[in-house]
């Protein structure tokens, strides 16, 4: 069972690994992520006409020939959790996932200041942050599954 707030190096922690040289800058990961986190979980419904474009938790940056996805590292010693004043950010002991509860988030931005990768996204409209949750309920996170060139891969 998960222990509240307790953090420990767990054995097999699954992480998304970024392979810059394989990224073709297609942004598909962003779409799959946004759809997965849309109530419909459906790409067409999420991005259908007349709808507000949903936001995902992964973001592709590009310049010239270089492109790659920015996505949470699920650090073993996560500074975002240390910084979180409300307790919304937690590290799940069993899975090693750093999870965020938007209900408890007050949008104080402390985690954004703490994250050395700039992967926690500020959702100004909702006044809370958003980050990768490794897609609960899915064997392989949507961004990894949807990446056509293995620029995002899952490692144990």
């Amino acid at each position, binding site marked *: 069972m998960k*222990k*509240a*707030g*307790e*953090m*420990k*190096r767990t054995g097999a922690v699954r992480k998304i690994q*970024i392979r*810059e040289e394989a990224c073709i800058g297609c942004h598909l990961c962003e779409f799959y992520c946004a759809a997965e986190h849309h109530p419909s979980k459906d790409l067409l419904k999420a991005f259908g006409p007349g709808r507000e474009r949903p936001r995902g938790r992964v973001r592709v*940056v*590009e*310049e010239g020939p*270089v492109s*790659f996805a*920015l996505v949470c*590292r699920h*650090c*073993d*010693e996560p*500074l975002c959790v*240390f*910084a979180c*004043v*409300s*307790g919304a950010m937690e590290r799940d002991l069993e899975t090693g996932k750093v999870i965020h509860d938007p209900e408890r988030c*007050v*949008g*104080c*931005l*402390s985690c*954004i*200041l*703490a*994250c*050395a*990768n*700039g992967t*926690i*996204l*500020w959702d100004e409209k909702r*006044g809370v942050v958003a980050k990768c949750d490794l897609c609960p309920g899915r064997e392989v996170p949507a961004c990894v599954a949807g990446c056509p060139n293995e620029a995002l891969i899952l490692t144990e």
Partner: protein
Amino acid sequence: MEAYRYLIIGNSTGGIGTVEGIRAVDPEGSIAVIGEETGPAYARPLISELLSGEKTQEEIFYRPSRFYPENRVDLFAGTRAEEIDISGRLVRTGDGKTRGWEKLLLAVGGAPIVPEFEGRERPGVFTFTTREDALQIREYLRKRGGGKRVVILGGGLIGLKAAEAFRARGLEVVMVELQDRVLAPVLDPASSRWLENVLSREGISLRFQETVTGVRPGRTGGFPLSVELKSGDSLPADLLLVAIGVRPRVELARASGLQADRGIMVNPRMETSTAGIFSCGDAAGIGDFFTGGNRPIPVWINAYWGGRVAGMNMAGEEREYEMGMMMNALRIFGKPVLSAGMVNPPAGGGVEVLQGEEKGSRRALLVRDGRLLGFSILGEIQSAGILAALIRSGAEIGEFRPRLLKPDFSLLDLPRGFREELREGRWNRSEKSSLA
């Protein structure tokens, strides 16, 4: 007498960080936490949400209620540690009990500073650092039919958060600040000005280079207080909030023989001058990268992180604390304000200030010898954490220096090697990082 492997004084973020640090290493050793405040630990920064009425007491608990039992922690809340007997390894508390320990930690935080002006004890004069303060202010205002105007002494983080809460309650707010700007210790001057524009738009009236000299009974408009200022002006008000800062609570440590000056002295392992006794948070003086001094860094992450490092050391895993700088995050009237490290260039020069400003956003970066020392960023803050990591690492910013000012700055703007290091979590000053 009960005796514990680990005894923690202070049930707030420093104490909780310590518990979590201990449990990450030692799942078994007995732990007790002694807390002067009642109930489980709460999110101190959220007492302004309690004051505004946006959140209830339960909604600001810092950890779920299962935290203490799951971590096998005996919590003694509502009683103060009065005396530490170092040679006997005992702590005596206000409820007359004595408890033993093998490792001890003090996360006793700070106490609000109230200057010696006349009338400081008068009803209607408050400080604002505890949940109880927020509840008492609410009760006081309720009795006054909501109140009409408050005066806040101090334009720092706590004063600003209180100002926002009072505005949400529909009160007029006058902010009195001795310096010539808000947040002077944590923002560069131009960023203070930027923020002051926001505050003025939100109806907060700012009185700089001014202070409170006394509080008398009110004379006009049915106000209970007349707040007297240095300039000779007096402000009729329902309430005066004194928010000029906190000072570390070093008394208990000092009385028991621990070394303390501006904070309880600790080494990088967070251990005090006496082996086996640790400290962290607002009470503990830790070294700062730039000044080397041992002044506390009174922010949340410092207390938690320091506590976590202390807890791991207490449980036998060697760790060194690596924050070593101020880190300040604030969202005030919806505007993001983040800063870290050195924000005001020291007299004597040698520090360059790079600045950038776009609509709704600005940034100021301090650079010396090709290394980033600190920044203030307002508005577009998405990648501020990368800059904070660059400061901590002490890395040379060389050719990519102009890129640091880009509003959409991201990992992409760093050399590939740097990106890899940051992804692997290597950003600190220790040898394992090639950044430094």
